[in-house]
């Protein structure tokens, strides 16, 4: 009933949720010795339309502190903000799609 874009929006929101969970655990472990930043390959998971849980991987290119921890609090807090904003965008767009179908139903009843 809802078109293809609604399915994509839902997948997008799933991936954003998974990513946000990892960001939260990265932030919680910002001082844990030996902890490595975790993330998902967002674009690859999005293009792969299968409904599997996304694969968690480690992030390249981060500098490591003396205790083996490589969490960059700037990267994580910025990702936190961007994830929340993108989630807001996707949910608003999804609401628009649902609204289109709803108004078609409603107007059809009036005539």
């Amino acid at each position, binding site marked *: 009933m809802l078109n293809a874009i609604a399915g994509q929006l839902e997948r997008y929101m799933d991936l954003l949720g998974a990513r946000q969970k990892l960001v939260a655990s990265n932030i919680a472990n910002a001082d844990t010795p030996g902890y490595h930043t975790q993330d998902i390959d*967002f*674009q690859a998971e999005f293009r792969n339309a299968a409904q599997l849980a996304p694969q968690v991987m480690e992030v390249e290119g981060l500098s490591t502190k003396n205790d083996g921890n490589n969490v960059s609090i700037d990267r994580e807090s*910025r990702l936190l903000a*961007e994830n929340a904003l993108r989630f807001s965008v996707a949910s608003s767009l999804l609401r628009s799609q649902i609204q289109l179908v709803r108004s078609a139903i409603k107007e059809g009843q009036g005539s």
Partner: protein
Amino acid sequence: MSLFSVLSIGSSGMQAQRTRAEMLVENLANAETTRTPEGGPYRRKDVVFESSEVSSPFTSIFNTQVQGTGVAVSEVVVDTSDPEKRYMPGHPDADQDGYVSFPNVRPAEDMVDLMGAARGYEANVAAIGAVKDMIQRSIDLLH
């Protein structure tokens, strides 16, 4: 260049200013350090900023647009000039002539620099806040 890439740019600015502030605080804390593991007095450090490409964790590899220019610390320069020598014959680190080598840290200048780093950090935070607001306004158009 999308609005979201500004988040990367501001974040790079925050990180660079933070590193700069860390170096300045290290200099200030070690202003009177005459003994280091490498031998000799503490040598003051300076950071060098360089513009660098920023990446966003949401861009696809098919996106060929420029993502904006952020900043990165390209190197930390250690001061190699001669240390300041003061005449203190009773000091444990005095050499044969009674002179002690002190780091040529300039506390007043580094304090002012530190304030500059704090302002720079705040400015980047404000930029990120402004852009987040813009993005939120765009989202509000949908309701």
